[in-house]
Protein backbone atom coordinates (compact mmCIF):
# COMPACT_ATOMS: atom_id res chain seq x y z
CA UNK A 1 0.00 0.00 0.00
CA UNK A 2 1.53 3.29 -1.03
CA UNK A 3 1.43 6.15 1.45
CA UNK A 4 -1.29 8.73 0.81
CA UNK A 5 -0.25 11.77 -1.23
CA UNK A 6 0.47 15.01 0.60
CA UNK A 7 -2.88 16.63 -0.11
CA UNK A 8 -4.76 13.59 1.04
CA UNK A 9 -2.61 13.42 4.18
CA UNK A 10 -3.44 16.99 5.09
CA UNK A 11 -7.13 16.40 4.49
CA UNK A 12 -7.16 13.30 6.66
CA UNK A 13 -5.15 15.13 9.29
CA UNK A 14 -7.49 18.08 9.28
CA UNK A 15 -10.51 15.81 9.64
CA UNK A 16 -9.00 13.94 12.57
CA UNK A 17 -8.09 17.18 14.27
CA UNK A 18 -11.54 18.63 13.72
CA UNK A 19 -13.32 15.60 15.07
CA UNK A 20 -11.02 14.63 17.95
CA UNK A 21 -12.38 17.01 20.63
CA UNK A 22 -15.73 15.29 20.42
CA UNK A 23 -14.14 12.05 21.54
CA UNK A 24 -12.32 13.45 24.54
CA UNK A 25 -13.78 12.74 27.98
CA UNK A 26 -13.09 16.18 29.38
CA UNK A 27 -11.60 19.59 28.74
CA UNK A 28 -8.31 18.79 30.43
CA UNK A 29 -7.24 16.70 27.47
CA UNK A 30 -7.65 19.73 25.26
CA UNK A 31 -4.92 21.44 27.25
CA UNK A 32 -2.68 18.42 26.79
CA UNK A 33 -3.34 18.42 23.06
CA UNK A 34 -2.72 22.14 22.83
CA UNK A 35 0.69 21.72 24.43
CA UNK A 36 1.31 18.70 22.19
CA UNK A 37 0.51 20.87 19.18
CA UNK A 38 2.93 23.57 20.33
CA UNK A 39 5.64 20.98 20.87
CA UNK A 40 4.76 19.55 17.49
CA UNK A 41 5.43 22.84 15.74
CA UNK A 42 8.84 23.14 17.38
CA UNK A 43 9.61 19.50 16.71
CA UNK A 44 8.73 19.89 13.02
CA UNK A 45 11.24 22.68 12.72
CA UNK A 46 13.86 20.90 14.77
CA UNK A 47 13.37 17.80 12.68
CA UNK A 48 14.14 19.75 9.53
CA UNK A 49 17.35 20.88 11.19
CA UNK A 50 18.37 17.56 12.71
CA UNK A 51 16.79 14.90 10.58
CA UNK A 52 17.08 16.49 7.16
CA UNK A 53 20.03 18.83 7.40
CA UNK A 54 21.87 16.64 9.88
CA UNK A 55 22.72 19.38 12.34
CA UNK A 56 21.96 19.42 16.06
CA UNK A 57 20.63 22.02 18.44
CA UNK A 58 20.66 21.48 22.17
CA UNK A 59 19.38 24.95 22.88
CA UNK A 60 16.19 25.19 20.86
CA UNK A 61 14.01 25.88 23.88
CA UNK A 62 15.82 29.21 24.06
CA UNK A 63 14.09 30.39 20.88
CA UNK A 64 10.76 29.16 22.23
CA UNK A 65 11.40 31.13 25.41
CA UNK A 66 12.75 34.26 23.75
CA UNK A 67 9.62 34.56 21.64
CA UNK A 68 7.28 33.83 24.54
CA UNK A 69 9.00 36.39 26.74
CA UNK A 70 9.22 39.01 24.00
CA UNK A 71 5.56 38.93 23.18
CA UNK A 72 4.75 38.63 26.89
CA UNK A 73 6.79 41.67 27.84
CA UNK A 74 5.61 43.78 24.92
CA UNK A 75 1.94 43.04 25.47
CA UNK A 76 1.80 42.86 29.26
CA UNK A 77 4.30 45.52 30.28
CA UNK A 78 4.21 47.84 27.32
CA UNK A 79 0.64 47.23 26.25
CA UNK A 80 1.38 46.50 22.64
CA UNK A 81 -1.45 44.94 20.66
CA UNK A 82 -1.13 41.17 20.65
CA UNK A 83 -0.51 40.69 16.90
CA UNK A 84 2.25 43.30 17.02
CA UNK A 85 3.83 41.61 20.00
CA UNK A 86 3.77 38.25 18.30
CA UNK A 87 5.22 39.62 15.09
CA UNK A 88 7.98 41.39 16.99
CA UNK A 89 8.76 38.20 18.89
CA UNK A 90 9.21 36.18 15.72
CA UNK A 91 11.25 38.98 14.16
CA UNK A 92 13.53 39.09 17.18
CA UNK A 93 14.10 35.35 17.11
CA UNK A 94 14.76 35.53 13.39
CA UNK A 95 17.45 38.13 13.97
CA UNK A 96 19.03 36.40 16.96
CA UNK A 97 19.05 32.99 15.31
CA UNK A 98 20.58 34.39 12.14
CA UNK A 99 23.26 36.08 14.20
CA UNK A 100 24.08 33.00 16.21
CA UNK A 101 23.82 30.67 13.22
CA UNK A 102 26.62 32.22 11.23
CA UNK A 103 29.47 31.31 13.58
CA UNK A 104 27.78 28.30 15.16
CA UNK A 105 27.04 26.35 12.00
CA UNK A 106 30.67 26.48 11.00
CA UNK A 107 31.16 24.05 13.85
CA UNK A 108 30.56 20.39 13.39
CA UNK A 109 29.36 17.52 15.50
CA UNK A 110 30.16 17.91 19.17
CA UNK A 111 31.30 21.49 18.88
CA UNK A 112 28.00 22.45 17.29
CA UNK A 113 26.13 20.64 20.04
CA UNK A 114 28.12 22.42 22.73
CA UNK A 115 27.77 25.77 21.03
CA UNK A 116 24.00 25.52 20.85
CA UNK A 117 23.90 24.24 24.42
CA UNK A 118 25.97 27.16 25.61
CA UNK A 119 23.73 29.61 23.78
CA UNK A 120 20.63 28.07 25.29
CA UNK A 121 22.06 28.34 28.78
CA UNK A 122 23.09 31.96 28.29
CA UNK A 123 19.52 32.83 27.29
CA UNK A 124 18.20 30.94 30.31
CA UNK A 125 20.55 32.78 32.65
CA UNK A 126 19.59 36.15 31.16
CA UNK A 127 15.88 35.35 31.54
CA UNK A 128 16.56 34.52 35.17
CA UNK A 129 18.72 37.49 35.97
CA UNK A 130 17.22 40.41 34.05
CA UNK A 131 14.58 40.67 36.75
CA UNK A 132 13.48 44.17 35.89
CA UNK A 133 12.50 43.13 32.41
CA UNK A 134 11.57 39.50 32.76
CA UNK A 135 10.43 39.16 36.33
CA UNK A 136 13.30 36.83 37.10
CA UNK A 137 12.73 33.31 38.41
CA UNK A 138 9.18 34.10 39.48
CA UNK A 139 8.23 34.80 35.92
CA UNK A 140 5.99 37.26 34.17
CA UNK A 141 2.23 37.15 34.28
CA UNK A 142 -0.78 39.06 33.09
CA UNK A 143 -0.15 38.36 29.44
CA UNK A 144 -3.27 39.15 27.42
CA UNK A 145 -5.16 36.55 25.44
CA UNK A 146 -4.68 35.89 21.79
CA UNK A 147 -7.27 37.65 19.67
CA UNK A 148 -8.18 36.89 16.10
CA UNK A 149 -9.93 39.47 13.93
CA UNK A 150 -10.47 41.60 17.01
CA UNK A 151 -12.13 38.89 19.10
CA UNK A 152 -10.24 37.29 21.96
CA UNK A 153 -9.84 33.52 21.88
CA UNK A 154 -11.31 32.53 25.21
CA UNK A 155 -12.16 28.84 25.14
CA UNK A 156 -9.67 26.01 25.17
CA UNK A 157 -11.53 24.45 22.29
CA UNK A 158 -11.00 27.49 20.10
CA UNK A 159 -7.33 27.63 21.06
CA UNK A 160 -6.97 23.96 20.24
CA UNK A 161 -8.19 24.65 16.72
CA UNK A 162 -5.91 27.67 16.37
CA UNK A 163 -2.84 25.73 17.44
CA UNK A 164 -3.56 22.68 15.35
CA UNK A 165 -4.36 24.81 12.32
CA UNK A 166 -0.88 26.23 12.81
CA UNK A 167 0.48 22.68 13.05
CA UNK A 168 -1.16 21.74 9.78
CA UNK A 169 0.18 24.86 8.14
CA UNK A 170 3.72 24.16 9.34
CA UNK A 171 3.41 20.56 8.25
CA UNK A 172 2.31 21.63 4.79
CA UNK A 173 5.13 24.14 4.46
CA UNK A 174 7.69 21.65 5.72
CA UNK A 175 6.35 19.06 3.31
CA UNK A 176 6.71 21.44 0.40
CA UNK A 177 10.20 22.34 1.50
CA UNK A 178 11.29 18.73 1.63
CA UNK A 179 10.04 18.04 -1.87
CA UNK A 180 11.83 21.01 -3.39
CA UNK A 181 15.41 21.64 -4.45
CA UNK A 182 16.02 23.08 -1.00
CA UNK A 183 14.91 19.81 0.54
CA UNK A 184 17.30 17.89 -1.67
CA UNK A 185 20.06 20.31 -0.79
CA UNK A 186 19.43 19.71 2.92
CA UNK A 187 19.56 15.98 2.57
CA UNK A 188 22.67 16.28 0.42
CA UNK A 189 24.39 18.37 3.08
CA UNK A 190 23.45 15.79 5.68
CA UNK A 191 25.14 12.96 3.83
CA UNK A 192 28.09 14.69 2.24
CA UNK A 193 28.78 18.38 2.55
CA UNK A 194 31.75 18.00 0.25
CA UNK A 195 29.69 16.56 -2.58
CA UNK A 196 26.93 19.08 -1.98
CA UNK A 197 29.37 21.96 -2.31
CA UNK A 198 30.87 20.37 -5.40
CA UNK A 199 27.45 20.55 -7.02
CA UNK A 200 27.12 24.24 -6.31
CA UNK A 201 25.11 24.12 -3.09
CA UNK A 202 26.10 26.94 -0.75
CA UNK A 203 26.21 24.72 2.30
CA UNK A 204 26.77 27.48 4.81
CA UNK A 205 23.87 29.58 3.63
CA UNK A 206 21.56 26.59 3.39
CA UNK A 207 22.36 25.43 6.90
CA UNK A 208 21.83 28.92 8.26
CA UNK A 209 18.54 29.13 6.39
CA UNK A 210 17.14 25.95 7.87
CA UNK A 211 18.43 26.87 11.32
CA UNK A 212 16.66 30.22 11.18
CA UNK A 213 13.50 28.60 9.82
CA UNK A 214 13.41 26.08 12.64
CA UNK A 215 14.07 28.82 15.18
CA UNK A 216 11.19 30.86 13.75
CA UNK A 217 8.87 27.89 13.97
CA UNK A 218 9.82 27.55 17.63
CA UNK A 219 9.14 31.28 17.96
CA UNK A 220 5.65 30.94 16.52
CA UNK A 221 4.97 28.21 19.04
CA UNK A 222 6.40 30.44 21.76
CA UNK A 223 4.01 33.28 21.00
CA UNK A 224 1.05 30.92 20.97
CA UNK A 225 2.23 29.54 24.29
CA UNK A 226 2.52 32.94 25.92
CA UNK A 227 -0.97 34.04 24.96
CA UNK A 228 -2.46 30.75 26.05
CA UNK A 229 -0.88 30.18 29.43
CA UNK A 230 -0.62 33.95 29.91
CA UNK A 231 2.38 33.46 32.19
CA UNK A 232 6.01 32.70 31.42
CA UNK A 233 8.86 31.63 33.66
CA UNK A 234 12.45 30.67 32.84
CA UNK A 235 12.11 27.12 34.09
CA UNK A 236 9.95 26.19 31.11
CA UNK A 237 12.70 27.09 28.67
CA UNK A 238 15.88 25.65 30.10
CA UNK A 239 18.20 22.80 29.21
CA UNK A 240 15.65 20.18 30.25
CA UNK A 241 13.16 21.59 27.77
CA UNK A 242 15.75 21.58 24.98
CA UNK A 243 16.61 17.98 25.73
CA UNK A 244 12.94 17.08 25.72
CA UNK A 245 12.58 18.60 22.26
CA UNK A 246 15.54 16.65 20.95
CA UNK A 247 14.08 13.49 22.48
CA UNK A 248 10.81 14.11 20.67
CA UNK A 249 12.56 14.38 17.34
CA UNK A 250 14.81 11.40 17.93
CA UNK A 251 12.11 9.21 19.40
CA UNK A 252 9.61 10.11 16.72
CA UNK A 253 12.10 9.47 13.96
CA UNK A 254 14.41 11.92 12.30
CA UNK A 255 14.27 12.20 8.55
CA UNK A 256 10.51 11.91 8.42
CA UNK A 257 8.19 14.84 9.06
CA UNK A 258 5.76 12.55 10.78
CA UNK A 259 8.50 11.62 13.18
CA UNK A 260 8.83 14.97 14.84
CA UNK A 261 5.10 15.34 15.16
CA UNK A 262 4.57 11.84 16.46
CA UNK A 263 7.37 12.21 18.97
CA UNK A 264 5.93 15.48 20.21
CA UNK A 265 2.46 14.06 20.69
CA UNK A 266 3.67 10.87 22.33
CA UNK A 267 6.07 12.60 24.70
CA UNK A 268 3.51 15.22 25.68
CA UNK A 269 0.73 12.73 26.26
CA UNK A 270 2.87 10.03 27.83
CA UNK A 271 3.72 11.86 31.07
CA UNK A 272 0.02 12.54 31.55
CA UNK A 273 -0.67 8.85 31.16
CA UNK A 274 2.24 8.00 33.42
CA UNK A 275 1.19 10.46 36.14
CA UNK A 276 2.10 7.92 38.72
CA UNK A 277 5.74 8.03 37.71
CA UNK A 278 6.17 11.64 38.90
CA UNK A 279 9.87 12.11 39.48
CA UNK A 280 10.79 9.09 37.41
CA UNK A 281 9.98 10.88 34.19
CA UNK A 282 13.44 12.35 33.89
CA UNK A 283 15.03 8.90 34.09
CA UNK A 284 12.51 7.55 31.62
CA UNK A 285 13.44 10.26 29.13
CA UNK A 286 17.09 9.38 29.42
CA UNK A 287 16.41 5.69 28.98
CA UNK A 288 14.20 6.36 25.98
CA UNK A 289 16.96 8.33 24.32
CA UNK A 290 19.56 5.63 24.91
CA UNK A 291 17.38 2.71 23.92
CA UNK A 292 16.06 4.51 20.90
CA UNK A 293 19.52 5.28 19.60
CA UNK A 294 20.71 1.77 20.25
CA UNK A 295 17.83 -0.28 18.91
CA UNK A 296 15.50 1.92 16.94
CA UNK A 297 17.52 4.75 15.45
CA UNK A 298 14.72 5.59 13.07
CA UNK A 299 12.39 6.15 16.00
CA UNK A 300 8.69 5.45 16.12
CA UNK A 301 8.39 5.92 12.40
CA UNK A 302 10.88 3.11 11.85
CA UNK A 303 9.06 1.02 14.44
CA UNK A 304 5.75 1.45 12.70
CA UNK A 305 7.38 0.78 9.35
CA UNK A 306 8.97 -2.43 10.57
CA UNK A 307 5.73 -3.54 12.13
CA UNK A 308 3.93 -2.87 8.88
CA UNK A 309 6.46 -4.88 6.88
CA UNK A 310 6.13 -7.70 9.34
CA UNK A 311 2.40 -7.77 8.86
CA UNK A 312 2.45 -7.45 5.07
CA UNK A 313 5.33 -9.90 4.70
CA UNK A 314 3.33 -12.45 6.60
CA UNK A 315 0.53 -12.09 4.14
CA UNK A 316 2.86 -12.34 1.13
CA UNK A 317 4.37 -15.57 2.35
CA UNK A 318 1.07 -17.27 1.82
CA UNK A 319 1.15 -16.54 -1.91
CA UNK A 320 2.94 -19.00 -4.22
CA UNK A 321 6.54 -18.09 -5.05
CA UNK A 322 7.05 -16.22 -8.33
CA UNK A 323 9.12 -17.69 -11.14
CA UNK A 324 12.52 -16.01 -11.38
CA UNK A 325 12.63 -13.79 -14.51
Amino acid at each position, binding site marked *: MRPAGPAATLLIGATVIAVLPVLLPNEYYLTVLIVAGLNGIIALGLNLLMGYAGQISLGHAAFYGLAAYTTGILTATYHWPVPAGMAAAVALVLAVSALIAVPTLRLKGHYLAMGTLGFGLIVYIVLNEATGLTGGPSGLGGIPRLSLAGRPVTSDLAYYYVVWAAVLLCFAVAG*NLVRSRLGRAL*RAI*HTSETAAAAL*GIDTERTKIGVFVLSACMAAVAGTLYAHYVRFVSPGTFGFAASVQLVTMVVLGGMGSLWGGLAGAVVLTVLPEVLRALEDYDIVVYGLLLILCMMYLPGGLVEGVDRLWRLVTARRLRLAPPEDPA
Partner: protein
Amino acid sequence: MNAKAGAFLWGEDITLHFGGVQALESVSFRVKENDLQTIIGPNGAGKTSLLNVITGVYWADRGGVFLREQPLTGLPAHAIARSGIVRTFQNLELFSTMTALENVLTGGHLLFHYGMRDWCFRTHRFRAEEAALREKAEAALAFVGLSATADTLAGNLPFGSARLLEIARALAAEPRVLLLDEPAAGLNIRETVVLGDIIRRIVDRGITVIMVEHDMDLVMRVSDRVLVLNYGKVIAEGTPAEVQRNPDVIAAYLGEV
Protein backbone atom coordinates in the same frame (compact mmCIF):
# COMPACT_ATOMS: atom_id res chain seq x y z
CA MET B 1 49.62 36.41 -14.96
CA ASN B 2 48.73 36.25 -18.61
CA ALA B 3 46.29 33.87 -20.19
CA LYS B 4 48.19 31.42 -22.31
CA ALA B 5 47.02 31.24 -25.89
CA GLY B 6 44.35 28.60 -26.35
CA ALA B 7 44.35 27.77 -22.67
CA PHE B 8 40.87 27.08 -21.39
CA LEU B 9 41.56 25.78 -17.92
CA TRP B 10 45.04 26.42 -16.72
CA GLY B 11 47.14 26.54 -13.58
CA GLU B 12 50.39 28.27 -12.76
CA ASP B 13 53.00 27.47 -10.11
CA ILE B 14 50.59 25.62 -7.83
CA THR B 15 52.25 24.73 -4.56
CA LEU B 16 50.62 22.95 -1.62
CA HIS B 17 51.89 21.32 1.49
CA PHE B 18 50.35 19.69 4.58
CA GLY B 19 52.50 20.02 7.63
CA GLY B 20 55.78 18.58 6.51
CA VAL B 21 54.52 16.92 3.37
CA GLN B 22 54.93 18.70 0.04
CA ALA B 23 51.87 17.63 -1.90
CA LEU B 24 52.35 19.82 -4.95
CA GLU B 25 55.39 21.78 -6.03
CA SER B 26 55.20 24.46 -8.67
CA VAL B 27 52.72 22.58 -10.83
CA SER B 28 51.65 24.28 -14.03
CA PHE B 29 49.25 22.89 -16.57
CA ARG B 30 47.18 23.90 -19.55
CA VAL B 31 44.03 22.17 -20.68
CA LYS B 32 42.59 22.93 -24.11
CA GLU B 33 38.88 23.34 -24.45
CA ASN B 34 37.02 20.11 -25.17
CA ASP B 35 40.11 17.99 -24.61
CA LEU B 36 40.31 14.89 -22.49
CA GLN B 37 43.32 15.50 -20.29
CA THR B 38 44.39 12.72 -18.01
CA ILE B 39 46.62 13.13 -14.99
CA ILE B 40 48.67 10.09 -14.06
CA GLY B 41 51.42 9.33 -11.61
CA PRO B 42 52.39 6.89 -8.88
CA ASN B 43 50.44 6.83 -5.63
CA GLY B 44 50.95 9.92 -3.56
CA ALA B 45 52.09 11.92 -6.56
CA GLY B 46 49.59 14.63 -5.82
CA LYS B 47 46.97 13.89 -8.46
CA THR B 48 43.93 14.14 -6.22
CA SER B 49 45.50 17.07 -4.42
CA LEU B 50 45.65 18.89 -7.73
CA LEU B 51 41.99 18.13 -8.38
CA ASN B 52 41.16 19.35 -4.89
CA VAL B 53 43.00 22.61 -5.53
CA ILE B 54 41.17 23.14 -8.82
CA THR B 55 37.80 22.53 -7.20
CA GLY B 56 38.45 24.66 -4.14
CA VAL B 57 38.55 21.85 -1.59
CA TYR B 58 42.12 22.85 -0.78
CA TRP B 59 43.58 26.31 -1.14
CA ALA B 60 47.06 26.32 -2.58
CA ASP B 61 49.87 28.02 -0.71
CA ARG B 62 51.06 29.61 -3.91
CA GLY B 63 49.98 29.83 -7.50
CA GLY B 64 46.58 29.93 -9.11
CA VAL B 65 44.03 28.21 -11.24
CA PHE B 66 42.21 30.03 -14.01
CA LEU B 67 39.27 29.42 -16.28
CA ARG B 68 40.27 31.46 -19.33
CA GLU B 69 40.80 34.87 -17.70
CA GLN B 70 38.79 34.21 -14.56
CA PRO B 71 40.84 33.35 -11.48
CA LEU B 72 39.44 30.48 -9.47
CA THR B 73 41.90 30.60 -6.62
CA GLY B 74 40.39 31.35 -3.24
CA LEU B 75 36.85 30.69 -4.35
CA PRO B 76 34.85 28.32 -2.14
CA ALA B 77 33.94 24.97 -3.65
CA HIS B 78 30.35 25.86 -4.45
CA ALA B 79 31.41 29.00 -6.31
CA ILE B 80 33.75 26.96 -8.47
CA ALA B 81 30.90 24.63 -9.27
CA ARG B 82 28.91 27.65 -10.30
CA SER B 83 31.68 28.51 -12.76
CA GLY B 84 30.89 25.27 -14.53
CA ILE B 85 33.52 22.98 -13.05
CA VAL B 86 32.04 19.82 -11.54
CA ARG B 87 33.74 16.71 -10.20
CA THR B 88 33.37 13.15 -9.05
CA PHE B 89 35.18 11.64 -6.08
CA GLN B 90 37.76 8.94 -5.60
CA ASN B 91 35.90 7.54 -2.59
CA LEU B 92 32.33 7.81 -3.76
CA GLU B 93 30.39 10.64 -2.18
CA LEU B 94 26.91 9.66 -3.22
CA PHE B 95 23.88 10.75 -1.24
CA SER B 96 23.22 7.25 -0.04
CA THR B 97 19.85 7.92 1.57
CA MET B 98 18.42 9.33 -1.66
CA THR B 99 17.41 7.40 -4.74
CA ALA B 100 19.55 7.44 -7.87
CA LEU B 101 17.14 9.86 -9.50
CA GLU B 102 17.15 12.15 -6.49
CA ASN B 103 20.94 12.17 -6.56
CA VAL B 104 20.89 13.30 -10.16
CA LEU B 105 18.15 15.86 -9.46
CA THR B 106 20.45 17.28 -6.79
CA GLY B 107 23.17 17.39 -9.40
CA GLY B 108 20.98 19.78 -11.32
CA HIS B 109 20.66 22.08 -8.33
CA LEU B 110 22.22 25.01 -10.14
CA LEU B 111 20.09 24.78 -13.25
CA PHE B 112 17.02 26.39 -11.72
CA HIS B 113 16.59 28.98 -9.05
CA TYR B 114 12.99 29.10 -7.91
CA GLY B 115 12.72 30.59 -4.46
CA MET B 116 10.89 30.22 -1.17
CA ARG B 117 7.66 31.69 -2.47
CA ASP B 118 7.65 29.16 -5.29
CA TRP B 119 8.18 25.98 -3.34
CA CYS B 120 6.03 27.16 -0.43
CA PHE B 121 3.00 27.72 -2.61
CA ARG B 122 3.92 25.29 -5.37
CA THR B 123 3.59 27.96 -8.02
CA HIS B 124 3.53 27.39 -11.73
CA ARG B 125 7.22 28.23 -11.93
CA PHE B 126 7.97 25.55 -9.31
CA ARG B 127 6.08 22.87 -11.17
CA ALA B 128 7.50 23.80 -14.55
CA GLU B 129 11.10 23.96 -13.38
CA GLU B 130 10.86 20.73 -11.39
CA ALA B 131 9.41 18.97 -14.43
CA ALA B 132 12.17 20.30 -16.67
CA LEU B 133 14.78 19.25 -14.12
CA ARG B 134 13.31 15.79 -13.92
CA GLU B 135 13.53 15.41 -17.67
CA LYS B 136 17.19 16.39 -17.66
CA ALA B 137 17.91 14.06 -14.75
CA GLU B 138 16.28 11.14 -16.50
CA ALA B 139 18.31 11.95 -19.61
CA ALA B 140 21.53 11.95 -17.59
CA LEU B 141 20.67 8.57 -16.09
CA ALA B 142 19.91 7.22 -19.54
CA PHE B 143 23.23 8.56 -20.84
CA VAL B 144 25.16 6.33 -18.43
CA GLY B 145 22.72 3.47 -18.77
CA LEU B 146 21.19 3.58 -15.29
CA SER B 147 17.57 4.34 -16.13
CA ALA B 148 16.41 1.05 -14.61
CA THR B 149 17.81 1.96 -11.21
CA ALA B 150 16.22 5.42 -10.97
CA ASP B 151 14.24 4.56 -7.86
CA THR B 152 16.89 2.48 -6.12
CA LEU B 153 18.52 3.97 -3.06
CA ALA B 154 22.01 5.07 -4.02
CA GLY B 155 23.42 3.25 -1.03
CA ASN B 156 22.07 -0.03 -2.38
CA LEU B 157 23.59 0.19 -5.83
CA PRO B 158 26.35 -2.19 -6.88
CA PHE B 159 29.73 -0.53 -7.01
CA GLY B 160 30.00 -0.20 -10.78
CA SER B 161 26.58 1.44 -11.00
CA ALA B 162 27.44 3.73 -8.12
CA ARG B 163 30.46 5.01 -9.99
CA LEU B 164 28.35 5.69 -13.06
CA LEU B 165 25.72 7.38 -10.93
CA GLU B 166 28.25 9.87 -9.66
CA ILE B 167 29.11 10.72 -13.24
CA ALA B 168 25.45 11.11 -14.16
CA ARG B 169 24.98 13.38 -11.17
CA ALA B 170 27.89 15.55 -12.26
CA LEU B 171 26.58 15.65 -15.85
CA ALA B 172 23.19 16.86 -14.63
CA ALA B 173 24.92 20.06 -13.58
CA GLU B 174 25.63 20.70 -17.31
CA PRO B 175 29.28 21.48 -16.59
CA ARG B 176 31.81 23.04 -18.96
CA VAL B 177 34.55 21.06 -17.27
CA LEU B 178 34.12 17.63 -15.73
CA LEU B 179 36.76 16.34 -13.32
CA LEU B 180 36.83 12.60 -12.79
CA ASP B 181 38.84 11.27 -9.86
CA GLU B 182 39.84 7.66 -10.57
CA PRO B 183 36.52 6.73 -12.17
CA ALA B 184 37.74 3.26 -13.08
CA ALA B 185 38.99 2.31 -9.63
CA GLY B 186 37.41 -0.95 -8.60
CA LEU B 187 35.77 -1.61 -11.95
CA ASN B 188 36.28 -4.82 -13.87
CA ILE B 189 37.43 -4.95 -17.47
CA ARG B 190 33.98 -4.89 -19.03
CA GLU B 191 32.84 -2.03 -16.82
CA THR B 192 36.01 -0.10 -17.66
CA VAL B 193 35.32 -0.42 -21.38
CA VAL B 194 31.79 0.91 -20.87
CA LEU B 195 33.25 3.73 -18.79
CA GLY B 196 35.75 4.68 -21.46
CA ASP B 197 32.95 4.78 -23.98
CA ILE B 198 30.86 7.03 -21.77
CA ILE B 199 33.78 9.37 -21.18
CA ARG B 200 34.45 9.79 -24.89
CA ARG B 201 30.76 10.49 -25.46
CA ILE B 202 30.95 13.17 -22.79
CA VAL B 203 33.82 14.81 -24.65
CA ASP B 204 31.83 14.51 -27.88
CA ARG B 205 29.17 16.64 -26.25
CA GLY B 206 31.62 19.49 -25.95
CA ILE B 207 32.58 19.08 -22.32
CA THR B 208 36.21 19.40 -21.29
CA VAL B 209 37.24 16.41 -19.21
CA ILE B 210 40.13 16.12 -16.79
CA MET B 211 40.64 12.64 -15.43
CA VAL B 212 42.91 11.24 -12.77
CA GLU B 213 43.53 7.58 -13.46
CA HIS B 214 45.74 4.57 -12.80
CA ASP B 215 44.37 2.24 -15.44
CA MET B 216 46.90 2.70 -18.23
CA ASP B 217 44.83 0.86 -20.81
CA LEU B 218 41.98 3.25 -20.31
CA VAL B 219 44.28 6.25 -20.19
CA MET B 220 46.09 5.46 -23.38
CA ARG B 221 42.90 4.55 -25.17
CA VAL B 222 40.76 7.62 -24.49
CA SER B 223 43.04 10.54 -23.62
CA ASP B 224 43.93 13.44 -25.88
CA ARG B 225 46.74 14.57 -23.63
CA VAL B 226 48.42 13.22 -20.52
CA LEU B 227 50.05 15.03 -17.60
CA VAL B 228 52.42 13.04 -15.40
CA LEU B 229 53.04 13.93 -11.76
CA ASN B 230 55.57 12.45 -9.40
CA TYR B 231 56.28 13.61 -5.86
CA GLY B 232 54.12 16.65 -6.45
CA LYS B 233 55.99 17.81 -9.54
CA VAL B 234 55.16 17.67 -13.23
CA ILE B 235 57.58 15.33 -14.93
CA ALA B 236 56.03 15.02 -18.37
CA GLU B 237 53.19 16.32 -20.52
CA GLY B 238 52.08 15.35 -24.01
CA THR B 239 50.08 12.92 -26.08
CA PRO B 240 49.64 9.40 -24.72
CA ALA B 241 52.21 8.07 -27.16
CA GLU B 242 54.80 10.71 -26.24
CA VAL B 243 54.33 10.14 -22.53
CA GLN B 244 54.54 6.38 -22.90
CA ARG B 245 58.00 6.71 -24.44
CA ASN B 246 59.26 9.28 -21.94
CA PRO B 247 62.20 7.80 -19.95
CA ASP B 248 61.40 9.84 -16.81
CA VAL B 249 57.89 8.47 -16.79
CA ILE B 250 59.10 4.94 -17.23
CA ALA B 251 61.58 5.41 -14.41
CA ALA B 252 58.90 6.75 -12.10
CA TYR B 253 56.71 3.76 -12.74
CA LEU B 254 59.44 1.15 -12.70
CA GLY B 255 58.41 -1.67 -10.42
CA GLU B 256 54.79 -0.52 -10.26
CA VAL B 257 52.14 -2.24 -12.31
